[in-house]
């Protein structure tokens, strides 16, 4: 793994609303390194997208109370003004989004939108920008780029649009690419193409990638590090192998058990009881405690910090490490038994 390129320290993003304060992100710390894909997993409302939008300054500052630090290339992004942040957006730090159908302006040609992205950081003439655009489209696998550059977004398929978005994001050789659910709106075969493309780019340019997704399968396939989020906080954080072969948090267990397995018919799914909490009234103590089958005394009183409790990687659960290992093994055994 390369040197750290993004360090997030105790990030808090709170939105005051008439009903109360929405604690979208509530104390988050993590580091992304060059050359790694960092997977952030969580369900809707876990704060995974807000974290990245905040880093890019895409959350309106006047609508939120933001604290903490986001260090990128020697700057604390949270302290930069919008004007100072602009030269970083799309240059050192670029982002692609979930819905490629909505992310390109429907009235402008795809080529022009990329040319615009090139020209807003580099002062080059239109012709040079155009040639670079054709090169980028070619690099992300769009056939006949010199023709397609004149197309409008609606003339592109979903996969092609996501490729165009990636081309745009790569225009200035960023050191970090944030991909927010980049394949959720796409079909599986197209998803495979896009994931492969992102992985290829990561290796070729040795950049860092943050991959935000709700799909554990995607993370397990392409990420090197994983952070599992619940209600605005990290509940488990480690390398892919650590988290997937020895998960230590009951929420991670629940997520893993909720997914129907494609490799075997499997027995009954074990869903997580209840529903995610309102971010205005997050339960006291551990936010997951009302849904946790293993909760005990301290769970609804003390909030567990994200610590390595001896399991090899940080997690936020009061259970003793022996109990965690035993419980996970039991749950695994139970699952396999039902399945066979």
């Amino acid at each position: 793994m390369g040197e750290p390129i993004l360090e997030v320290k105790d990030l808090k993003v709170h939105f005051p609303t008439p009903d109360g304060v929405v604690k979208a992100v509530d104390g988050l710390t993590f580091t992304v390194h060059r050359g790694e894909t960092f997977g952030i997993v969580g369900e809707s409302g876990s704060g995974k997208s807000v974290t990245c939008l905040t880093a890019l300054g895409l959350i309106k500052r006047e609508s939120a109370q933001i604290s903490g630090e986001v260090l990128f290339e020697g700057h604390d992004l949270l302290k930069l003004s919008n004007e100072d942040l602009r030269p970083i957006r799309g240059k050192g730090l670029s982002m692609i989004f979930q819905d490629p159908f909505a992310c390109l302006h429907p009235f402008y040609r795809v080529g022009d939108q990329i040319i615009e992205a090139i020209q807003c950081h580099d002062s080059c003439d239109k012709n040079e920008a155009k040639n670079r655009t054709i090169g980028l489209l070619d690099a992300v696998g769009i056939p006949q780029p010199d023709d397609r550059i004149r197309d409008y977004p609606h003339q592109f398929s979903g996969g092609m649009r996501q490729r165009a978005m990636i081309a745009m994001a790569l225009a200035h050789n960023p050191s970090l690419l944030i991909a927010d659910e980049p394949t959720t709106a796409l079909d599986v075969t197209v998803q495979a193409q896009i994931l492969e493309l992102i992985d290829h780019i990561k290796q070729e340019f040795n950049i860092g990638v943050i991959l935000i997704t709700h799909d554990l399968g995607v993370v397990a396939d392409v990420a090197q590090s994983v952070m599992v989020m619940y209600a605005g906080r990290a509940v488990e954080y480690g390398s892919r192998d650590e988290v997937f072969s020895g998960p230590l948090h009951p929420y991670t267990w629940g997520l893993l058990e909720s997914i129907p397995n494609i490799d075997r018919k499997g027995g009954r799914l074990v869903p997580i009881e209840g529903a995610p909490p309102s971010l205005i009234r997050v339960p006291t103590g551990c936010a997951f405690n009302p849904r946790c089958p293993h909760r005990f005394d301290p769970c609804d009183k003390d909030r567990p910090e994200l610590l390595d409790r001896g399991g090899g990687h940080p997690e936020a659960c009061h259970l003793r490490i022996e109990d965690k290992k035993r419980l996970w093994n039991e749950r695994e055994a139970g699952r396999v038994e039902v399945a066979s």
Partner: protein
Amino acid sequence: MSRAASTNEPTTDTPPEDIAKSSKAVGEPLVTVENLTKRFPIKKGIIFQREVAAVHAVEDVSFAIYPGETLGLVGESGCGKSTTARVLLKLIEPTSGKITFEGEDITNLNKRQMRPMRRQAQMMFQDPYASLNPRQTIGQIIGAPFRIHKMSGEAKPKVQELMERVGLNPEHYNRYAHEFSGGQRQRIGVARALALRPKLIVCDEPVSALDVSIQAQVLNLFEDLQGEFGLTYLFISHDLGVVRHISDRIAVMYLGHVVEVATADELYNNPKHPYTAALLSAVPKGKVGAQVTTRTVLTGDVPSPVNPPSGCPFHPRCPKARQVAGGEGVPENCRDDLPPLGEVVDNHHAACWYPVEETEELAKAAHA
């Protein structure tokens, strides 16, 4: 044009009820579709519009669903799976083909004649936010089928019983849909679909909009209700894991055609159609240590259903066809003739001239 000809004559000799039976296939099928075709015309003209082309949404699809069984219908967006379901329920009229429900031919029934059948077959949709009327209480929503079908008696106790059964608090009878979360709304949808004790429920991507933890709850509910009420499901999804979990038997669609039908385990363990194989290999395995096999990544996009390829619809992207032809284009029969949905191995049907061998690894498809 061999393609035009192929749609006039059935592409399979197997009667629909015998295509890849599951263990639940006993007695008479509940629903059968035979050579079902739906084309949406594209019209042009100054005053008199003439048909210049058509979207080939569903092409010569045949299958049967037996009572108590779940048939999964998978495929990527635009493959015709939702259209198939809507034609099957006669929400849209088929262009040709035959639909049988409980032995009765319902293809040409009009709206009024369809009413008794409507009670027997319900549909559930993907979006739990859009499919519920925001001005109605959930009591009214779930009770609506009783009113529409002019059932006698007090609806409220029946509705509350249903709410209890699908895991909703019956005291919430007078609440509005927006007061519920996505998972609970989908439960409301289930209760509404169940109200008239139908035999068949067609589920169109019913869990796609839900978070994984909630998705598992709803899938379990589907399974429980099937056991309790003896329901038959046609379950449409693009999520291959979900479909495998819930289905007894699975049909795979590509560009309007059913390209493969087999029992769930058989299809996933031993896919015969190269498209199915590619689809399965594209799914992230979500497991560490699983050897990173060379994934068959299909290149290019699905062709337009307005102008589908000749012969086998998959041939322009097919990795197997390229292997067979030795790197030089594709074999002639793939290009010219539509392969019939034939029994490749025991109880496993696929529409392919060169079905995939059990141990075969497909290479990356060449550029279309």
